[in-house]
């Protein structure tokens, strides 16, 4: 006899097929497959990748919460890690205060031996650099949430940037991504700040970019371009106004709109639908949190 409390979980899953997609199109996870390249993102990508490949040292990308920094960090890591001429280490959360702890974290990402003394750890990095450059491989360090770094940690990073292989070749390459406070923190460490080869900022999206992001995500999730647009042109403006163009907020709102839409029998998400949703579920953000 079946337990009366058992129920079929499958029937409670959203019917994504109705939207013409094979995977959920709107998630707030940093997935490089869904990375929409806005003009600002493309500018940051082209400048930073040029500096990295030209061996210019440190590059900085700043952006407010939800502008796509972590997605960009994942993009850099995935792209460069699979290239034979690069070895990449990505630090998502920096250890507090200690420069040595940061070096140890980076060493662990590269698969190096971690040491208890800063000088020993730096020697490990020096030996690793020589070994890699002999093979024509350039080590790349990507640090997300870099606004949390402390001045003493910047000192150690500067020492890493100073390393050269004996033939005078390229040193470690560094990409720092963080909130706008990162720029302020860097002013406190002028020695390091001088080493920054390029600075880029990720700004919120324009209404046109918002529309393109939504369309791109639906396309990447499997919706064909032959189908009529799921979101009408008029629906974009209230979405942009509500989210102020922050990609993560756009994705979260669109996810809720899609879930609400699936419970109706409508054909498209239009302006009245979005406005009605926002009035009815003004606290959807808190609910999602």
């Amino acid at each position: 006899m079946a337990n009366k409390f058992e129920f079929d979980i499958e029937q409670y899953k959203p019917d994504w097929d109705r939207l013409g997609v094979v995977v959920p199109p709107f998630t707030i996870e940093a997935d490089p497959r869904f990375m929409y390249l806005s003009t600002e993102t493309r500018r940051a990508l082209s400048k930073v990748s040029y500096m990295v490949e030209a061996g210019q040292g440190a590059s900085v990308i700043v952006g407010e919460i939800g502008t796509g920094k972590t997605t960009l960090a994942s993009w850099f890591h995935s792209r460069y890690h699979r290239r034979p001429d690069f070895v990449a280490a990505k630090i998502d959360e920096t250890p507090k205060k200690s420069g040595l702890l940061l070096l140890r974290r980076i060493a662990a990402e590269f698969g190096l031996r971690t040491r208890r003394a800063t000088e020993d750890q730096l020697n490990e990095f020096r030996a690793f650099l020589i070994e890699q450059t002999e093979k024509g491989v350039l080590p790349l360090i990507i640090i997300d949430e870099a606004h949390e770094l402390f001045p003493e940690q910047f000192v150690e990073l500067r020492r890493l940037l100073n390393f050269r292989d004996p033939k005078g070749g390229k040193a470690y390459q560094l990409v720092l991504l963080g909130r706008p406070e990162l720029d302020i923190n860097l002013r406190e460490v002028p020695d390091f700040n001088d080493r920054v080869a390029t600075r880029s900022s990720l700004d919120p999206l324009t209404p046109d970019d918002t529309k393109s992001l939504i369309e791109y995500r639906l396309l990447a999730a499997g919706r064909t371009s032959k189908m009529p647009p799921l979101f009408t042109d008029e629906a974009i403006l209230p979405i942009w106004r509500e989210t102020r163009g922050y990609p993560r907020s756009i994705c979260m709102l669109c996810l809720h709109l899609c879930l609400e839409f699936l419970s109706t029998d409508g054909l498209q998400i239009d302006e009245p639908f979005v406005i009605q949703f926002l009035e009815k579920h003004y606290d959807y953000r808190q609910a999602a949190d």
Partner: protein
Amino acid sequence: MSNQSDKSKDSTLAALLKEKPKRGRPRHDVSRQNVYVALTVLEKSHMRNLSKEMPKSIVRADVPDLAVTILSARLEAMRRAVADRNREIPEGVTDFDSLYLLWDMMIPDSDEERKWTSIRLSPQEAIELGRVQGTLNAAFGATRSDTFSLGLALLTQYLEDHTLSADLSLSDVRNQIINIYL
């Protein structure tokens, strides 16, 4: 008295041999080649304006040569900068427009109507344009017109950033560009 006035006049032969400003296209040591590109009305008028900002000896017909020289120099500079890597164009330059972003220029409006026009290029520049377009076409599917428009934008930026003295010749400006970027 009349003899004196006759002497002051040049003979017909001397007048014919005298150097006079010539009409038509300026003469060059090597004849230039016609290359066909599709440009917007704005780009065409821009070429005329660019020649006015150049030294006296450089005319509108020389602008395409310089646009190709600067484009070729900047791409070569990029190639050399990433010479140790296994790509000529950095990973993050994901499309043709990204080159505009990389070099801090405005992305052109792609919807603007373009009309075919002929530009005249020195033989070396014609080869360079083909070479650059080959690279950009393989990477991003760029056409010859797209490539030339990028060169024009780079030349505009160069003239905004550098002041050229009035007595420079075409080859002086060309050498200056090469010295700066290569």
